[in-house]
């Protein structure tokens, strides 16, 4: 490795790391948290016997999953201003990513709730719990265990998808890489460095997933 390349790698590391710490990671965390809230509501709506609740939920999931994330981002950031709704880059990205995660995670949560045996609902009702209490105390904790692996998938995808926010001017890891690359002309080196950084973040997340799974698995036979 030439000294210049090494020099470029080290000098570009901090801007990119800063992009990750102030852009990529908080964007992913905030969007994922909001997305989970949306997902839980949508999942419960979809599971409802009332058509006026389940129909809109189904439509929401269909639209979110049936359209590209990049298009969703552009509609919110570049499209909405034409009807008078102007949102800054960061909040635009949060809205787009939350809505997107909400659609995918809703299906995960719905399946997880359905995977809890009917007898659990019945035992909860037998001891006198209402539907809401049974859901909160008995069903959701068990559904949570089942949904950790697929939700981790969603989260890891989201971390990588936040690089799309560079296209609506959010300063994050990949936008930093692009700017330095354009300035130095060293595309290969800088984009590989960016890739490596994303990979490291995802490795940490995978480790976190394993620990969470172990903790939630303490009450099942192995």
């Amino acid at each position, binding site marked *: 490795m030439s000294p210049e390349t090494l020099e470029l790698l080290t000098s570009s590391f901090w801007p990119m790391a800063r992009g990750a710490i102030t852009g990529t990671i908080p964007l992913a965390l905030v969007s994922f948290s909001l997305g989970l809230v949306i997902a839980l509501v949508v999942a419960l709506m979809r599971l409802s016997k009332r058509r006026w609740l389940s129909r809109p939920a189904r439509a929401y999931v269909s639209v979110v999953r049936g359209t590209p994330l990049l298009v969703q981002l552009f509609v919110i950031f570049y499209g909405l201003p034409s009807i008078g709704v102007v949102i800054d880059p960061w909040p635009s990205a949060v809205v787009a990513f939350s809505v997107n995660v909400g659609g995918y995670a809703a299906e995960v949560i719905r399946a997880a709730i359905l995977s809890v045996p009917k*007898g*659990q609902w*019945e*035992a909860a009702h037998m001891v*006198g719990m*209402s539907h809401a*209490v049974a859901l909160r105390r008995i069903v959701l904790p068990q559904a949570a265990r089942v949904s950790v692996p697929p939700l981790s998938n969603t989260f890891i995808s989201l971390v990588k998808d936040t690089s799309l926010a560079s296209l609506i001017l959010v300063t994050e890891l990949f936008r930093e890489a692009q700017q330095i690359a354009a300035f130095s002309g060293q595309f290969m080196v800088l984009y590989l460095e960016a890739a490596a950084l994303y990979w490291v973040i995802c490795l940490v997340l995978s480790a976190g997933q394993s620990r969470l799974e172990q903790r939630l698995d303490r009450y*099942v*036979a192995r």
Partner: protein
Amino acid sequence: MSPGDHDVLEPPGGHPAPGEPGEPVLVVDGLGKRFGDHEVLRSVDLRVRRGQVLAVIGPSGSGKTTALRCLNGLEIPDTGRVAVGSELVVDFSGGASRAEIAALRDRSAMVFQHYNLFPHKTVLENVLEGPVVVQRRPRAEVTVEAVELLRRVGLADRKDAYPFELSGGQQQRVGIVRALALRPTLLLFDEPTSSLDPELVGDVLGLIKELADEGWTMVIVTHELQFAREVAHEVAFIDGGTVVEHGHPDQVLRDPREERTRQFVQRLLHPF
């Protein structure tokens, strides 16, 4: 013996005086239920007096489990009335309210065929869930009571175990303790030994018999005819969604009046 453990084990309302039948605790009239085109219950009438045990027998698909589940509001019948104790009468024919279903659940507790313990909670937490979360009784008081109940079924030392660490027989005993801790007027058992390994059946039946001897009022759906004869005060044979025959266990099980009852009992006693 710790002080107070006696009241823990006593059924609410106490025992009827010996030789004297208690007042009716459960009165079921004309229970009807259909799932789509299938009429599961045509018209089920049942009566149980305080301190008495009713065993419900019948072929699979006869509606006996559905009838039992109606008593806990796990199924909502389309027609008929259920009265528990002196003050609660739920008339399903006009559609029962949420409050009525809740009242029904408050007075009865069910032990399930597949135990249905909460797998993410320890044995003790399983028992506390109803009394503390739903009935809002003080946790400390209920814990003392729950541990006492667990001790009595030989599981006090397993109180912090998770259900998956227990045998089927132990899980079902926890299921029974969970029901007792709710202090119900009426105990309901849905084939409590049907998913147990044969060598574990005796323990659970023994426990249920003890509860019967202590004066708990119970309805037990079961295939254990020998047990029904020994423990029940009355046996009801349900077939085709209705009570075909009911009466003293010796009469129904040894000398049935109805041909259908006779055939059913014969099949259970001589399977091949």
